[in-house]
């Protein structure tokens, strides 16, 4: 690990990432805004951030937490509550006299608040839960996510959370598009902005992972007792990782709210956590690049590439059997099971993109995608 690494792969990676951003920007200006590509890119960016935040816990710290959906819910709600325009509140909170929050904050501030709120919840939950081990911890975090969901649906909190009714009318991704005076869109930014938000957050997580703290977290993952013997404060590091992961899950929740344009507590179920966990597993537990890749792959497969399985297909006069609504998800889950059973290291194992590049450069392999 300590051998001196060449800087080239890192630079190539940065150039690649920059190229992707430019490509996204150009695609957005040229292709029709209704293209399926943008749905995938937007949702993929949201899932990438959430998956990386989960990977920080499950892959880098060895805390097997299943509370991600709960923290996303907190983030989504905090974002929604503080950004719904004041003149819309009467119609959104129609059963609660317009609600009690009667001001809005800028989008960026709301997103940071979303993260902080999720981190705060994580801090509280972490106090009892982080003392538990492996599968008990998993089930306890899952339980907390359910409790959070119940609290946000409670009518007693209706003036703040709108009870079990949905929040809507807050700024979403499309509001990032720059329009001229007559309302025509001049510059499309609705895909680039989520990319930038997710990119910045993931970069921050990368910096953390590569710092001294990150190495301490990996030590905790590999052997708690040994790590403690080396002077790492277990409780402190676990709590830190838990709060930071939840912070980004909260920001991810806010982004999901923007993507969906509405928020309702009942959609943040344990099934959502499972999906994110499967993304992390497919990408490789312990690889940030893997989580990002597999998020886009997962979203693209489930939303786009496998769509044809849901419709009747004719080859000549032959109607392919079995194809109807829902078949896509069956095929998809079978693929996931194959990955889980036979390719347990996922797409990337625990490698990052620069690692791959440096090996390929040595072997003069083909250029990375």
């Amino acid at each position: 690990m300590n051998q001196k690494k060449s800087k080239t792969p890192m630079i190539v990676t940065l150039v690649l990432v920059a190229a992707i951003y430019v490509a996204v920007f150009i695609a957005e200006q040229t292709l029709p805004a209704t293209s399926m590509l943008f749905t995938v890119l937007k949702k993929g960016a949201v899932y990438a951030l959430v998956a990386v935040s989960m990977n920080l816990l499950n892959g880098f710290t060895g805390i097997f937490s299943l509370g991600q959906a709960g923290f996303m819910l907190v983030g989504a709600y905090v974002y929604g509550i503080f950004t719904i325009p004041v003149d819309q509140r009467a119609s959104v909170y129609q059963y609660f006299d317009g609600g009690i929050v009667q001001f809005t904050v800028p989008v960026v501030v709301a997103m940071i608040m979303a993260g902080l709120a999720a981190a705060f919840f994580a801090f509280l939950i972490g106090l009892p839960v982080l003392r538990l081990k492996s599968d008990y911890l998993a089930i306890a975090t899952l339980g907390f996510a359910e409790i959070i969901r119940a609290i946000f649906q409670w009518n007693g909190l209706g003036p703040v959370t709108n009870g079990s009714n949905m929040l809507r009318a807050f700024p979403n991704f499309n509001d990032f598009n720059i329009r001229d005076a007559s309302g025509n869109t001049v510059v499309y930014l609705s895909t680039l902005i989520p990319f930038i938000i997710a990119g910045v957050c993931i970069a921050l997580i990368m910096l953390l992972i590569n710092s001294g703290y990150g190495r301490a977290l990996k030590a905790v993952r590999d052997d708690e007792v040994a790590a403690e013997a080396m002077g790492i404060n277990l409780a402190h590091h676990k709590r830190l990782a838990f709060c930071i992961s939840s912070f980004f899950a909260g920001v991810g929740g806010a982004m999901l709210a923007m993507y969906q344009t509405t928020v309702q507590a009942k959609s943040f179920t344990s099934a959502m956590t499972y999906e994110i966990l499967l993304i992390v597993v497919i990408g490789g537990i312990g690889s940030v690049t893997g989580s990002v890749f597999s998020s886009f792959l997962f979203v693209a497969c489930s939303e786009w590439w496998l769509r044809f399985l849901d419709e009747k297909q004719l080859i000549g006069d032959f109607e392919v059997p079995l194809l109807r609504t829902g078949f896509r998800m069956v095929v998809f889950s079978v693929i996931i099971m194959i990955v889980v059973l036979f390719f347990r290291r996922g797409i990337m194992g625990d490698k990052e993109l620069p690692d791959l590049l440096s090996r390929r450069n040595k072997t003069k392999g083909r250029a990375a995608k």
Partner: protein
Amino acid sequence: MWDTIFPYLLSGVSVGGQYALIAIGYTMVYGILRLINFAHGDVFMVAGIIMVYLAASGLPLWLCIPLVLLITVAVGFLIERAAYKPLRSAPRMSVMISAIGVSYTLQNLVLYITGGLNKQYPTIPGISDTISIGAAKTKVVTVITPFLVIALVVALVMLINKTKIGMAMRAVSKDFETSQLMGIKINNVISATFIIGSFLAGVGSILFFTNYPTVIQTSGAMPGLKAFVAAVFGGIGSIPGAVIGAFIIGIMENIIKGLDVILFKLGVISQPVGLATFSDAFTFALLIIILIVKPTGLFGEKVTDKV
């Protein structure tokens, strides 16, 4: 006051019994494989769906019930062989992820088959009839459930304590590797565990869906999680513990569901405050409290971690 609480108590005992049947599957699998079988709740749901389709195909009900149990057992057996056996030497987390994958697959499969629609569970004559006990009106199944559960549990405890396979199960749950060295066929024991668990989940599904007669791909998730909590509450690995835990959770959950009404009739509150929302959350709060206060549950054995 008694008249107000009694109906909730009654349905609590009934639901608790149904949770108990699922919880036994969790606790036995955990006892042997140290695996939270996340797919168990979905096996329970699949049993419900199979019943719906068998009944719709025109088979007489007396034939449907044994067939449902048989197919459910087969499903449980196949899941273990396909998804857990290849991972026998893998880290525990991989097996748990595989269980989550199976749960996801089963739900999607059922979504495909049903088209995502609520399916009406067939009425089973005899246990679907309404009877009244004191002030409460309820279905016969509510009354039958606790007795059936106790009978099944007694039979199961006998099986575990008196038969050879039961002895093997106890040995495997004590020490996986040593029992393998002693010539116990681990795979057979594990299969037997899954077969028993799925059978009980099948029985549980017949009772549960007679009371709540719609089945959809997600209807196994909540009962599954609650049954797992019951198993942890009672001390994972302990069958009597799981049953007692399940009854406590079932009763508490139903009382909280009716707490608004009860408090209103007692004059404590003047208008409903919507406490029923917390009936699910309560179960998990209970889980977290028990994990902090007594992580081994009510009847669990103390385990020490070796470095």
